């Protein structure tokens, strides 16, 4: 099934070429019938929304519709950047991302390295089976479990605190506890699952390398430093690049479910703001502008960190 090359096209006369195209189209007619629903799906649910980004430059009103709404240029962006909310959102989003980067990102790496040192296959498999479970549980369940554990009305943790310290802490509404709570939830839910990719990389290391290192008198720390860590370095860098692109995204469901009127000052991030302003208050154009700002920064950060990684001699993702 060769593709038509430029050479073919020159050689064949125009009508012949058209005949070939028609013949191939006819031969593959069933293929196009099968392809149609999928293409339609991508156009309707992926590409029409992309084109809908133009809303950000309009004053879109549902009753006037897209075609007759007034164009306002960068007005919504100006409004947004001039809004004191902007700095609150930027701060909350960046702090949460930073916390996740510092406390969550290294966790699966460390856990994978520890699992890699286990030689009892049964023990290793059992631990893996147990720590992967939370990944498949919905965020609503995770938030719900956090609630029944942390509530001041008979929650397990607060009953313990009451018993041993004589006072309770309202984790769920306290602005000080919001960020640690989010990071702990993320570690509980995704840390185990995150080890898979590193364990796969570690499994591909040639055993002979360790044997040679042992012959050369390298202890376990040396082996870790010179063989194990280099073998997962490229994986770490790729995940770090991808993580950069998500720096303005904190996971809508988790934040939305764990936020309430009392911790909103630290909990409101770009994602939840788009939802609140856009869907519940109906400011469609303004919230589209906020969303566009967020995704544009994301794309720039991914491409930028990819470029940086390549510059330092690492393999990037593109």
């Amino acid at each position, binding site marked *: 099934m060769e593709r038509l090359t430029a050479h073919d096209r020159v050689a064949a006369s125009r009508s012949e070429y058209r005949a070939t195209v028609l013949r191939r189209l006819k031969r593959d007619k069933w293929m196009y019938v*099968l392809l149609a629903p999928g293409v339609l799906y991508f156009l309707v649910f992926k590409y029409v929304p992309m084109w*809908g980004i133009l809303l950000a430059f309009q004053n879109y009103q549902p009753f006037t519709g897209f075609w007759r709404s007034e164009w306002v240029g960068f007005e919504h962006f100006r409004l947004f950047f001039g809004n004191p909310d902007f700095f609150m959102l930027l701060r909350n989003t960046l702090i949460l991302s930073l916390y996740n980067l510092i406390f969550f990102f290294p966790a699966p790496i460390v856990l994978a390295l520890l699992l890699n040192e286990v030689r009892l296959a049964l023990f290793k498999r059992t631990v893996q089976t147990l720590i992967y479970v939370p990944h498949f549980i919905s965020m609503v369940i995770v938030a719900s479990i956090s609630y029944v554990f942390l509530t001041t009305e008979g929650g397990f943790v607060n009953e313990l605190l009451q018993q041993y310290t004589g006072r309770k802490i309202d984790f769920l509404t306290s602005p000080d506890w919001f960020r640690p709570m989010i990071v702990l939830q993320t570690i509980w839910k995704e840390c185990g699952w995150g080890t898979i990719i590193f364990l796969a990389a570690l499994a591909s290391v040639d055993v002979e390398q360790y044997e040679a290192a042992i012959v050369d008198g390298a202890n376990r720390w040396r082996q870790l430093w010179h063989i194990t860590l280099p073998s997962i370095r490229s994986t770490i860098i790729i995940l770090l690049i991808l993580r950069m692109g998500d720096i303005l995204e904190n996971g809508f469901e988790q934040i939305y479910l764990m936020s309430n009127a009392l911790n909103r000052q630290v909990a409101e991030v770009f994602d939840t703001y788009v939802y609140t302003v856009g869907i519940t208050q109906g400011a469609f154009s303004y919230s589209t502008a906020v969303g566009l700002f967020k995704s544009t920064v994301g794309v720039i950060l991914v491409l930028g960190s990819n470029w940086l990684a390549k510059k330092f001699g690492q393999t990037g993702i593109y």
Partner: protein
Amino acid sequence: MGKRYRTFGGTVFDVCNHAFLALFAILTIVPFLYVLAGSFATDTELTQRAFFLFPKKVSFGAYSFIFSTDTIIRSIGVSVYITVVGTLTNLLFTVTMAYPLARRGLMGRNTVLNLVIFSMLFGGGMIPTYLVVKGLGLLDTYWALILPGAISAFNLIIVKNFFQELPPELEEAARIDGCSEPGLLWRIVLPLSKPVLATFALFYAVGHWNNFFSALLYINDPSKWPLQVMLRQIVLLSQTAAGNASEMDPNFVPPPEQSIKMAVIVVGTLPILMVYPFLQKHFAKGVLIGSVKG
């Protein structure tokens, strides 16, 4: 990992390492066990916190309470419906699109592939997508929970690659025997792809069962809420959805609120735990990393 020198430090490390990993695994699982135990606990025990994992008296009060009202039962029904119909839709769309894309000589194939790949890098975002769903008149229908995610680009590409790797001789032979193109897909390719499709079905199904975001966006009618939204109402917003039972029976004493919440959590978690062993069998092979959310 080969033979290593046994040193004293190494042994100490091994002991600590095993202990730490065991502790971590237990801490991961204990919240589930606590919630499960709590859902069977009685009022007095829960308030006095006289137990942790084993209540002295087992009570089914919370379960009979939540199943005595149609609110929860209906939302379970909605979730099951969306999971079944949604997964079938996913498979249908994914397979029919992946099959032509696996055909090397197909004209326009690369254009479509690029279209798919670009949609993985960049998207319209929440509001434009919402307006498309609204414009199609899908708000407050179950299709709003099914169609916008009908194909995961990531899964599509994996299935396409799988189809490409099937031996071409099989298709050739079938074609010579007079098999039509749709017949080829149905009789040759699909039976060969059963294990792969079963895997994707499981992952898609888990995604549907767990889906909260789409329902929050697109479904306003409480009678159409799936279980995840109902869970949030009951546990996080403390709206005990079960008003009717107490109205019907004046002597009815509702079980403690905490154990109702825990029982609802158990109901929402159980299906996932039931399919987990099957899921685990597949992702252990390492093919599906990151594809769950799609």
